[in-house]
């Protein structure tokens, strides 16, 4: 389904981009740009970069495009004005276009495919499970480059004393996890399955993604024992409101109980009259992490190119009014 949607949006983006450069009506061009930018934001959603998608909408479509439209409407004045680029501009424009096209082709064909990303959450609790997950994933998807995206998180697990214990998180460990997760702004980790793209074998397309937990279900399917449940219960009961250092977690209503499986969470919640929260997600997706981390520079460069293009559009429309 998402593949169909992807191609739909891709086609739409191409069509609107084509209209942007070919139409003679400057306002039509601006509104077609809206379509193109909107489709780009849809691509970000497919890349699981929801934050970036929203930024794209907010900044480019809602902000900059409105400004551009303002400028165009204020200066052009009439509906019938036709845009015609002077011949002298064709050469530099064509050159810049070719260079950009070359860059794009190079980026998609020649450059390394983006590293595919795996790992690591504590849903099953403990370092062992995490390491198991990595191993399982690497085994399952051998040939795919894998990498833990949050080495700091893994590092802290290894370093901490709690790392020596396994399966059931103690209070310290789960607190540690919680704190790390909070600091890193992620509690959501994926196993990404990819396969070579049919168009370009060197480029991998994401075809499926799963939360790590479901993968671990097979490896770590032992039921939680009564003892363990009691231990956790005691742990929960000790969590007085003062015992928490993060404002949002003061209230037991929002308590995140990590490391529990299946019905145990609900069972505990019922026993203590707590609202069960299935899982707290945070606001950054995988794509955002990639985009904001490794590819920040290209992203900024792309932003500057867009800005220059927008200014150029304004200049072109202004030029016409004086003529």
């Amino acid at each position, binding site marked *: 389904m998402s593949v169909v949607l992807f191609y739909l949006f891709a086609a739409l983006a191409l069509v609107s981009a084509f209209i942007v450069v070919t139409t003679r009506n400057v*306002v039509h061009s601006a509104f077609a740009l809206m379509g193109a930018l909107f489709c780009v934001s849809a691509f970000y959603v497919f890349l699981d970069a929801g934050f970036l998608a929203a930024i794209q909408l907010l900044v480019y479509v809602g902000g900059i495009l409105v400004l551009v439209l303002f400028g165009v409407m204020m200066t052009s004045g009439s509906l019938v004005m036709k845009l015609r680029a002077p011949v002298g501009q064709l050469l530099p424009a064509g050159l810049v276009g070719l260079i950009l096209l070359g860059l794009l082709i190079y980026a998609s064909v020649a450059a390394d495919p983006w590293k595919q990303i795996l790992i690591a959450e504590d849903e099953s609790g403990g370092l062992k499970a995490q390491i198991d997950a990595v191993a399982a994933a690497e085994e399952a998807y051998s040939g795919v480059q894998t990498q833990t995206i949050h080495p700091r998180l893994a590092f802290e697990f290894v370093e901490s004393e709690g790392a020596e214990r396994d399966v059931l998180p103690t209070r310290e460990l789960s607190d540690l996890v919680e704190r790390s997760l909070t600091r890193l702004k992620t509690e959501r980790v994926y196993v990404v399955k990819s396969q070579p793209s049919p168009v370009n074998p060197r480029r991998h397309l994401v075809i499926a993604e799963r939360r790590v937990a479901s993968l671990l279900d097979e490896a770590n399917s032992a039921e939680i024992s009564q003892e363990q449940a009691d231990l956790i219960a005691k742990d929960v009961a000790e969590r007085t409101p003062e015992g928490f250092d993060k*404002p949002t977690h003061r209230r037991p209503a929002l308590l995140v109980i990590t490391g529990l499986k299946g019905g145990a969470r609900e069972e505990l919640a019922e026993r203590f009259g707590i609202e069960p929260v299935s899982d707290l997600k945070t*606001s950054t997706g995988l794509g955002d992490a990639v985009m904001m981390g490794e590819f920040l520079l290209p992203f900024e460069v792309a932003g500057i190119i867009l800005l220059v293009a927008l200014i150029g559009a304004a200049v072109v429309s202004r030029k016409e009014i004086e003529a």
Partner: protein
Amino acid sequence: MKHPIETAAEQIRATAAEATETLNLGGAWPAGLPLETVILLTLVVIAVIAVTVVAGIPIVLVLMERKVSAYFQNRLGPTRVGPWGLLVTLADGIKLLFKEDMVPPSSDRKLFRLAPYVVFAASFAVVAVIPPFQSTVIGNMDLGLFLYLAISSLIVLGIIMAGWASNSKYSLFGALRAAAQIVSYEIPLGLAVLMIVMATGTLNMQHLVMDQADGIHAWYMFRHPFLFIGAFIYFLSAVAEVNRTPFDLPEAESEIVAGYHTEYSGIRFAYFFLAEYANAFIVSAICATLFMGGWAAPFPFLSGVPGVVWFLGKTMFLVFIMMWLRWTLPRVRVDQLMSLCWKYFLPISFVNILGAGVLALLEREEIGAQLGGMFLSAEAVSWIAFPFVLALLGWFARWGTEPVRRPS
């Protein structure tokens, strides 16, 4: 962990298979359906239901507006169609549906036709982020709050499109006013929302509501004075965002006829009209969710009442306040509108952000005041200081505006 939709789809598939088997239709084919298809069908059904429900909201609101305005003005309002005039909006809708589809000959036809759909789609898409009750699916989006800000910024494009494509001076006036107004007021609105995000660290609306679920004292509105002020700034900015009196300049009837939809009639006008009321509902719903606890009951002993009742109650209360404002206040002028935003709301919002940030920090570090063996948290202290600071500010304000004698 499986996504709830996945689980639901599996259940639906199983139930369908069971049903066809008991009816002797042969239960094999539903069971053989790929899960993706079942999920797709489920989503489509959910979407259809959602759109139907959401499209019903403006219809209710239009009736409500007519009745409320009537009672504000010593009238009865609609009484003829249906009992107590209940069906009058439906009748209106049918009328609009059957009207001739007029497109002014000198307009830009393509954009003129497209514009209502942009406005309509953008304002209805926002509904997806609102949590009307506790649920792991509905309104449970990581980026819900941010998505609201992003998508609602698309509305202004539709309005500009309509105003420009109409090729009418009144429409252009309306569109430019709308654009300037919406873009400006988005800033204090966003800053008010940012305060909450700063304090909680999440953009998920469900989680925001859960954090307020303890009762009325846990509502963000009453957490500390900065959020209290922020709630008012949010609401007023939202009123300006949705172009309602006293900020209804983009469609100021007495000045620019009907603003950006002057040239529209029939069903295209109806789209603008519905979008307008949907917007009023949406900003009220978000205000209720962010500042007034959403679906959570105000008192714990009332938590037996379904969440959707609280949600609708709070939202309708805010919608009613909007109507109250509309039928009481005159309209501000365009320069006053801008100065209200840039000279008052924006500085106040910045102070709010600063204050909320400091308080969030103090709360996290558990810094407060000891008062006779009682520990007062930073928030409590700020509440105690609030009236004094206000009084001081008021005194300063008066001191500043003492009549100055100017040589005539």
